[in-house]
């Protein structure tokens, strides 16, 4: 189960020009879920979001780092192109660097919710996905 406290899921790291997050998880799946949560949480107010729509996402890459960037880029693209925001994520399959999952949330309404920052892109700069003891950790820097 996910931790309810967002600080257990991710922390924001100090970066002069842009924004970055360090993400934690008990499994790779949880790590990817928490990274998606962290990205939307620094981008827009996702508290008390009606969970009345979902999007299916399927992405693949050559390694965990690229898969993480691709997964987050895909979610950001749905926000940009369809104006949808999410605060719940489920991953049904993550094997051989292929991921199938769903994102659950609502349409973004700028009159009701504050947007914190536009994420231009998910970068590869100082990106890592690592297993530390039994836990997983990743770092992602976004271009703002």
């Amino acid at each position: 189960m996910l931790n309810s406290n967002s600080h257990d899921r991710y922390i924001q790291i100090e970066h002069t020009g842009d924004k970055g997050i360090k993400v934690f998880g008990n499994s790779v799946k949880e790590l990817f879920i928490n990274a998606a949560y962290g990205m939307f949480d620094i981008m827009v107010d996702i508290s008390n979001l009606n969970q009345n729509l979902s999007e299916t996402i399927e992405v693949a890459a050559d390694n965990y780092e690229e898969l993480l960037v691709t997964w987050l880029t895909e979610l950001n693209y749905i926000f940009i192109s369809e104006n949808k925001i999410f605060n719940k994520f489920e991953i049904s399959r993550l094997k051989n660097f292929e991921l199938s999952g769903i994102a659950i949330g609502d349409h973004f309404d700028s009159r009701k919710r504050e947007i914190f920052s536009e994420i231009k892109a998910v970068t590869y700069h100082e990106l890592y996905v690592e297993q530390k003891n039994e836990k997983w950790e990743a770092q992602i820097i976004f271009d703002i």
Partner: protein
Amino acid sequence: MSAIKLKKITNYLWEIPKQGGMRVPGRIYATEKMLDSIMSDNAPQQVMNVAHLPGIIGYSLAMPDIHWGYGFSIGGVAAFDLDEGIISPGGVGYDINCGVRLLKTPLYRDEIKDRIKPLIDLLYTSIPTGVGSKGELRISIRELKKVLINGARWAVENGFGQSKDLDHIEENGLMKGADPTILSDRALERGRPQLGTLGSGNHFLEIQVVDKIFDKESANALGLNENQITLTIHTGSRGFGYQVCDDSIKKMLKASEKYNIYLPDKQLCCAPIKSPEGKEYMAAMACAINYAFANRQVISHWAHEALEKALELRPGSLNLDVIYEVAHNIAKQESHSLGGSRRKLLVHRKGATRAFGPGSRELPSDYRELGQPVLIPGDMGRYSYVLLGTANAMSDTFGSTCHGAGRLLSRHKAIKKAKGRSIFRELADKGIYVRSTGKRTMAEEMPEAYKNVTDVVDAVSGAGISRKVVRLRPLGTIKG
């Protein structure tokens, strides 16, 4: 604090000696006072990383507004040999051809000082701003492709501004070699609704007054007098550019492996300039460069209309001239003198501005003797500067200089610092009226989040790579 050791070259120039896999030394332009903050983040390491890339010529350079970016630092300049060298989307950035346009009006401060508020309000409703802002222009994909090939020329041909505007834009507002057929559907879809939008973050449109003249003769040559009103536009290629960069980085990661290029940071992924992957990026980047040129031309036209309307003037009766327009996220092939001979190089400028000196053939005829105007916006509360490129810039920095103030505080720290304060009111108290879509943007972009642009400009002028002409003070701003 960084453990990197610097060697002092002059009061304004510091060298990171060649070490490890670096092919050339790093060089940072700064005053001693600025070094503490420069050395406190990862930007100097990024200067060293760029020095590892194949075919780099001379030095991996950084301007005084250097700060931590991704791949290249912001404020990074690097030139590459066309045969041995590489091209890297990380040396241009996501906001391809982010840049600045300066317009002069025939108005003076006294004529306009009581009308700033309605003018800014009208500009704010006339020009779409904010995250993911969409424009009034609804163009088809077919029309968009014409924009991508023809840049600002497309805008002029479609009634936005005048053809004389083109003379005062870098590359005359049209980058050759653009090929829209290689772009992803996503790039085209993201580009279509955003032409003629300012965007968010540090992008802005500002009404300013000429506040101080450093060089009267040059100011006269540019047609700028004390108390004259100017208008600055700072924006780029919007979501279109971000998508072009994103698509290119995926391809470049594969290309770096294919060509066996060692990358100290994956975001520096690149390909040899003359490889199919390198050529493809050049053609895609040119599309985004042209998009940004057209974007600023369209916004400029709308700002012109709003200005006339707010001042109750007949449409077309107010003469607005483009002083110049610069790109500060770009890679271009240029000829430079190296060891007594001219050589074509590929120069990356990421958060750095071209600053060609007097006599450069690339400059419009009316500026050829003067040198290239360089436009350096500061933060919302302080100043902006107009500089000129110099012969020193040509010999020392591949004709490059700084691009702005450069961030000092992370956005996170800025928000903490702004807690409980009204940045809008603080600026209003200084006589600057600001309209912005978000309170948070205002906090992130507050003046204290930036280095003092005057320090940055003094450093490039002290180093002789630009010279000061005039200082501009903001009166009103619209922000994303």
